[in-house]
């Protein structure tokens, strides 16, 4: 080992606390790169492999009923490589040990052989056999939630009759990676499941022999989707085709797309924050170290070391710090990545989902971090490498200060001399001061970004569940029924209030823009499901025209007074022009409303109901459930009361995890910045501080010089952090906006306060660690030497 390397090692040991603090900040950058990109790749590649191997369809369409003989016609559409004509029906499930009914979707599979598209992954057991009645395969999350195994039984209301189903196998489908029940905001594995039944058996139950009501097809690689969709629509319209669509309107696929987009955003925003801060810290520590070693460097140059050798010596120091950060960050990133993947496994069902550890990812993270560290060290290294030896060996020229804060006349005592010392030091190195404040403010901003989601979600839950969707349950009928059905529901046990609604799937079009969505018909004076204006006050439905949510208005560029085209998907794609009468607020889905009578007129076949929203006496819930389970007309029931609770729980669990991670990250940034800053100030001023002790200042008074200086920077960081946090949170909200949901942008004042409190506390602890060094100052030694 060369002598210079020995010096390097000793420097590292001597500066271990600062080295570690920087390495930790850098580790956060490395870990978040590995976490975000690793999780992105895991999810993306697993999904893609699952889609390919199990032939996930690319185009989908529902319809009322069509004969199976159409198969050849459909398969011959140009660009179609595989097709499956299925029966897909909603069913109500009566699960053992569960009072409330669960909702299910029954999907047909071929009697023999594998489906051409949307194949099933068999986790355990076997697929159901066509001859045996009631045999089914169920999706894994539902099976796990009910501890099912081959042989388990449960009852289902199918086509108005209660039947007992027997589980033969547990399966996974590329179509239901993310499975969410109708009307739910978040998956509930207990209350929603998908099961598969041989087509003859399912056809027998639903009177669909020789017919199908759902098409899923796969296309050739370069097929023209819009042409296939148009052809499919033309063929299926006479059979009640509800409009073909590609994967972007497939819920499971879109949800995963959203998740992937968020991971991409995380990879783009978070790691650069840490890499920037660590580059700054490297710059700070190296500048100081080199200032202290100036004379040594002069000596080394004088005895013949070249500038390159000196530069490489300090570059190596930087690289060792980076290496420590990379090792810690890789381990942490791997650990977090596994945790993240486990979390995904709760929400998404894949046959396998592992956190992919690819070498190139670690290499990228390592290189990016090393480059950031070197970039931070460049200026300091250049300054010392380019200094001629004779000048390097002289002491540096004394620091010149400017007389800020003297308060004009000397007798005007605004600040004590100790405070003036602190403030002049801050102003003397404005870039460093601002960067330190900026670094600290990033910690505040990260915390606000993590914490504000509590505020926004709480606000969203309050708005959605307590101001708009105030019903306890939403009952959906299997087929549209006459308005008399409302009385039947109102007469059910425990029902306090019932409001009928009609929902019809449409394509809403304005100019060249269009969206598939559902128009909900509202009663005249809704009390359970209400519409809110932009100020979130309830509004009465307008007698004519569409009331569209702000998001739909934005997507289609619609304003009040515009005439939109409504294509009725369940009415042979008939097109009707309807004016927009109001714009309302909605956070979920693509909400469009009309007053029921107006909607009935548009559809044109008299008043009908798709379902009923009810408010229930909670003490009689079980009776209601029992009645519903025995009511053939009910296809599905969404339980808003349970949804609300589950939504809160899930979101809170996720936010708690996220907040802990971000708090840890913010603590590391704050500690890294404040501790290093304090150590460097202390190093620069050790002599001054010792002098103050000699003159009779107490430890507390002497510390105040450092603490005032740090305090000023941390204080400056707060408003800056609030601003950055506000902007970051806003961009997060904008990034989350999708057709599925929009999170309202709400930050409570307490969030700013909590973020600041955490950062100030960590900063205070970091400063106090350094403060202890003041107690140990060697007064005698410091007076005998020059700076």
């Amino acid at each position, binding site marked *: 080992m060369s002598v210079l390397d020995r010096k390097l090692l000793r420097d590292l040991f001597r500066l271990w606390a600062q080295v570690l603090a920087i390495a930790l900040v850098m580790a956060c950058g490395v870990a978040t790169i590995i976490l975000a990109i690793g999780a992105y790749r895991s999810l993306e590649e697993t999904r893609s492999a699952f889609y390919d191997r199990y032939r996930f369809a690319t185009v989908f369409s529902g319809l009322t009923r069509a004969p199976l003989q159409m198969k050849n016609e459909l398969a011959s559409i140009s660009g179609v490589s595989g097709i499956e004509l299925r029966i897909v029906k909603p069913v109500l499930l009566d699960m053992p040990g569960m009072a409330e009914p669960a909702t299910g979707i029954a999907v047909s599979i071929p009697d023999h052989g594998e489906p051409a598209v949307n194949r099933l992954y068999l986790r355990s057991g076997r697929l159901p056999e066509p001859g045996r009645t009631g045999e089914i395969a169920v999706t894994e999350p539902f099976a796990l939630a009910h501890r099912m195994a081959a042989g388990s039984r449960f009852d289902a209301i199918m086509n108005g009759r209660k039947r007992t189903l027997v589980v033969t196998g547990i399966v996974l489908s590329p179509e239901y990676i993310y499975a969410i029940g109708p009307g739910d905001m978040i998956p509930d594995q207990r209350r929603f499941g998908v099961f598969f039944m041989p087509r003859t058996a399912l056809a027998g139950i639903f009177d669909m022999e020789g017919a199908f009501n759902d098409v899923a097809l796969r296309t050739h690689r370069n097929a023209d989707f819009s042409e296939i969709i148009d052809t499919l629509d033309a063929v299926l319209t006479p059979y009640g085709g509800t409009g073909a669509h590609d994967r972007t309107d497939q819920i499971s696929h879109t949800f995963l797309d959203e998740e992937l987009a968020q991971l991409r955003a995380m990879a783009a925003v978070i790691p650069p924050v840490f890499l920037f801060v660590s580059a700054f810290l490297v710059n700070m520590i190296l500048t100081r170290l080199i200032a202290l070693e100036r004379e040594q460097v002069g000596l080394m140059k004088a005895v013949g070391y070249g500038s390159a050798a000196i530069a490489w010596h300090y570059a190596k120091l930087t690289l060792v710090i980076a290496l420590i950060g990379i090792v810690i960050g890789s381990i942490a990133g791997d650990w977090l990545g596994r945790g993240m993947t486990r979390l995904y496994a709760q929400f998404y069902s894949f046959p396998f989902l592992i956190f992919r550890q690819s070498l190139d990812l670690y290499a990228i993270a390592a290189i990016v971090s090393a480059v950031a560290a070197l970039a931070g060290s460049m200026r300091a290294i250049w300054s010392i490498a380019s200094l001629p030896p004779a000048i390097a060996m002289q002491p540096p020229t*004394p620091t010149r200060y400017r007389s800020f804060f*003297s308060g004009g006349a*000397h007798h005007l005592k605004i600040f004590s001399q*100790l405070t003036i010392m602190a403030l002049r030091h801050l102003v003397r190195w404005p870039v460093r001061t601002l960067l330190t404040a900026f670094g600290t403010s990033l910690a505040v901003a990260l915390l606000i970004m993590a914490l504000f989601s509590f505020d926004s979600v709480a606000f969203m839950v309050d708005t959605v569940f307590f101001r708009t969707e105030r019903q306890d349950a939403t009952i959906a009928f299997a087929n549209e029924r006459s308005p008399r059905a409302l009385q039947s529901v109102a007469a059910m046990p425990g029902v306090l209030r019932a409001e009928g609604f009609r929902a019809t799937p449409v394509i809403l079009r304005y100019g060249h823009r269009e969206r598939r969505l559902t128009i909900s018909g509202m009663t005249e004076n809704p009390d359970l499901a209400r519409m809110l204006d932009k100020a979130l006050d309830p509004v009465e439905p307008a007698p004519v025209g569409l009331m569209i949510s702000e998001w739909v208005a934005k997507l289609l560029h619609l304003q009040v007074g515009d005439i939109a085209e409504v294509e009725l998907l369940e009415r042979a794609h008939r097109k009707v022009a309807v004016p927009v009468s109001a714009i309302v607020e909605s956070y979920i889905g693509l909400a469009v409303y009309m007053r029921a009578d107006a909607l009935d007129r548009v559809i044109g076949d008299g008043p009908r109901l798709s379902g009923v929203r009810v408010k229930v006496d909670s003490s009689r819930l079980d009776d209601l459930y029992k009645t519903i389970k025995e009511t053939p007309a009910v296809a599905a029931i969404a339980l808003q009361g349970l949804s609300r609770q589950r939504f809160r729980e899930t979101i809170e669990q996720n936010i708690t995890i996220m907040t802990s991670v971000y708090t840890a990250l913010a603590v590391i940034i704050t500690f890294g910045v404040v501790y290093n800053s304090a150590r460097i100030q202390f190093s620069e001023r050790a002599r*001054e501080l010792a002098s103050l002790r*000699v003159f009779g*200042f107490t430890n507390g008074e002497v510390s105040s010089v450092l603490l005032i200086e740090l305090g000023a920077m941390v204080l400056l960081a707060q408003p800056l952090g609030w601003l950055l946090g506000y902007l970051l949170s806003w961009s997060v909200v904008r990034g989350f906006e999708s057709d599925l949901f929009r999170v309202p942008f709400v930050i409570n004042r307490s969030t700013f306060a909590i973020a600041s409190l955490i950062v100030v506390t960590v900063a205070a602890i970091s400063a106090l660690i350094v403060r202890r060094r003041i107690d140990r100052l060697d*007064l005698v030694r410091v007076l005998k030497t020059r700076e």
Partner: protein
Amino acid sequence: MDNPIFSAHNLTKVYRSGEVEVFALRGVDLDLEQGEMAVLLGPSGSGKSTLLNIMGGLDRATSGTVHFRDQDLTAFSERQLTRFRRDHIGFVFQFYNLIPSLTAWENVALVTEISPNPMAPEEALEMVGLNERMTHFPAQLSGGEQQRVAIARAIAKRPEVMLCDEPTGALDSKTGIIVLEALWRINEELKTTMAIITHNAGIRDIAHRVFTFRDGRIADAMVNEKRAQPAEVSW
């Protein structure tokens, strides 16, 4: 000599580093009288700085006692020593130890702000002839000027004792004499007791008494019958 302001008795200081014991002081007895100017001479490592540091409350004796008036410094806590330095002692060091971020005036005010009975910083700077340069920072002052600011800072609190460790060590003869004149004047006008450490034997002539140190002991004590003026000091 019956009312010493400082009285050291059988003072010993041993530094231990590892196995090695270094005797910095080996039983020193010394009294300083009120208003006296004492010069401590001797080679490096002879113990004079150690004695000064113990008298100033910067260091602690291994054994023996030091009394300031009737208080035993060796029994003082860290906090009491800080208080003692703050209220009674003025220090002047070879490298001035000015605060670079404070102007001359502010460097003096730094000390007067925490003193019970200080003079105005202007007055102290006036006494060392620096009233013209009050708003200058240390980096804008020459070595001699910086040392005079340090002296002004030491006297501004009206200390009973000034302890000066090589006050002219970093200065040339001309500026050294100006600094000595400042010290002389303070001793004469304010009757401040002074102990001055120096390597420069010429300075002995301005003292009332001269103590020569060797190997941690006072090898010689001498009384000047007639003090010389600083200007007469041969450098």
